């Protein structure tokens, strides 16, 4: 197979990095810890014999576990993409590659695809593992985990596009810090929006929505987390008009999905445009 040589090399590169190996080891440890913690907590709640509370506890713990999985995947995406362009140019890795009959847009697109495959692969594996553990211990059945994975994949694609764009101009550290800061700001804005919803404060809601436009990562996570909760818990949460900083109580809106797709595509297109104009 001679197709997508840059994608293949980038995937091997991502996997060959020590940090990724360490990340996988930490993830394996996390799964063990999750299984132990889930088992202990669940058995304690189970003695209380309240079915609603049982379901709520299982849902909460699972979503929290997956929140951490998604956070690790976001970190991986930021780490991979922020060192993907400028650092490669400065170190001289790209000279021989870009002198080949290969357009820079294709190079960037293939690299983006590799990182999407690696990070989404990681999220899929870990999500399936976490849910399998929860299902094994508490027969936990989320609404639609595959849909959740698709939405998280979109969040990762957004982060990867932003990371690649910033790394066409800045060093790995600057690009990583900028991308991670935006990711953090989106998280904070998500909490502000949540509180705004509960207090019915319009300004706070607007801050949240505005920030989701600049960086839709947290809005996407909250949308994805809807599908990771069990239907009975969702009904209860929505009836209470609640929600929490780690999980949303509504599915992602079509406009959010459309905006995120357009956002990731535009950032990637701008990154390709910048790279095409850059002297190497």
């Amino acid at each position, binding site marked *: 197979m*001679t197709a997508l*040589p840059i994608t293949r*090399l980038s995937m*091997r*590169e991502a996997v*060959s990095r020590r940090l990724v190996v360490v990340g996988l080891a930490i993830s394996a440890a996390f799964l063990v810890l999750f299984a132990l913690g889930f088992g202990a907590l669940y058995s304690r709640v189970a003695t209380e014999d309240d079915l609603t509370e049982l379901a709520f506890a299982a849902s909460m713990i699972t979503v929290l576990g997956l929140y951490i999985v998604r956070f690790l995947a976001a970190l991986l995406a930021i780490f991979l993409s922020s060192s993907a362009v400028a650092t490669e140019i400065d*170190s*001289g*890795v790209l*000279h*021989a*590659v*870009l*002198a*080949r*009959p*290969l*357009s820079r847009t294709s190079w960037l697109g293939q690299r983006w695809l590799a990182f999407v495959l690696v990070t989404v692969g990681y999220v899929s594996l870990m999500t399936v593992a976490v849910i399998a553990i929860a299902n094994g211990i508490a027969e936990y059945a989320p609404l639609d985990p595959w849909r959740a994975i698709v939405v998280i994949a979109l969040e990762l694609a957004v982060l990867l596009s932003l990371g690649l764009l910033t790394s066409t101009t800045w060093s790995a550290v600057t690009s990583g810090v900028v991308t991670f800061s935006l990711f953090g700001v989106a998280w904070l804005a998500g909490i502000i929006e949540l509180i705004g919803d509960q207090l019915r404060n319009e300004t706070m809601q607007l801050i949240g929505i505005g920030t989701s436009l600049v960086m839709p990562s947290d809005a996407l996570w909250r949308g994805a987390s809807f599908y990771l909760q069990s239907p009975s818990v969702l009904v209860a949460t929505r009836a209470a008009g609640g929600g929490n900083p780690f999980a949303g109580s509504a599915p992602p809106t079509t406009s959010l999905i459309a905006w995120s797709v357009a956002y990731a595509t535009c950032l990637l297109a701008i990154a390709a445009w910048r790279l095409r*104009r850059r*002297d*190497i």
Partner: protein
Amino acid sequence: MRSGGSPMASADAAITARGLHKRYGRHVALASLDLVVEPGQVVGLLGPNGAGKTTTVKILTGLVRPTGGTAELFGVPVADPPARSRLGYLPEHFRFPEWLTGLELLRFHARLAGRDPRRDADWLHELLALVGLDGRGDERIRGYSKGMTQRLGLAQALVGAPDLVLLDEPTSAMDPLGRREIRELIRTLARDGVAVLLNSHLLSEVELVCDHVVVIDRGTVLRSGTLDEVRSASLEVRIELERVDQRARDLVAGYGRIIATDDHEILLGTDDPDVVPRLAADLVQSGARVRALVPLRRSLEDAFVGLVRKEES
């Protein structure tokens, strides 16, 4: 190879560059550079540091966008990726992914060059042997010495069986034996009709392997032509007379600049390689008793230093 003025490229010229201009902010790296390289030619690109050699090579590989002028490889503008399908390039400063083995790197570049590395397995091994890395292809690049990495870089440049090879300081990390092998390799390429543009600080190396030379400084071509043409570009002629008087000195000065003189000898510097017979005739006619008139064969280094110094003054 033709260069300077307005070069006329044949339809299948490997490189045709016209009026190349590159500005980095206020700094002008290339003022107006013309260059034509034909298939089978080995052309040395010479110039002091900062003359614009690497910028030229990078424009020709599509890595740097010129701010003016045009550059084509085999008639296709360098900005189009297909222009680079017949190109092999060894960059000056490069690094390969260290976690790959030498053979894996070649396979990767073979794919990028549009070849099928599985069908080309024999060719890749042959290539490793050609650059002196026989049996080392399965080792990780991390363990390669500088010289070995440069050899691998050369194999990488040749992996697509290119018709044009751009080598930017290809032997800077090699020992004398390695340099000799690379020279042989370049000669073999030229015999097969491959055009080679060699960018090197080692003038002796250029002298040994190139048939054409382009000397550039401050982004323009100072002189270009065959090795002999460039070497004789700033000729020195030793004139031995029975007695050097003012009349003889004035006469000689009309042919160039007098570098040194004493009672019996004048050392003349000139740009005109055909000066000797005319000077001989004039001197004899003026009544001077000429004992010897010796055009001094100069090394490329002498010619290079002469050209660049003249430009600076």
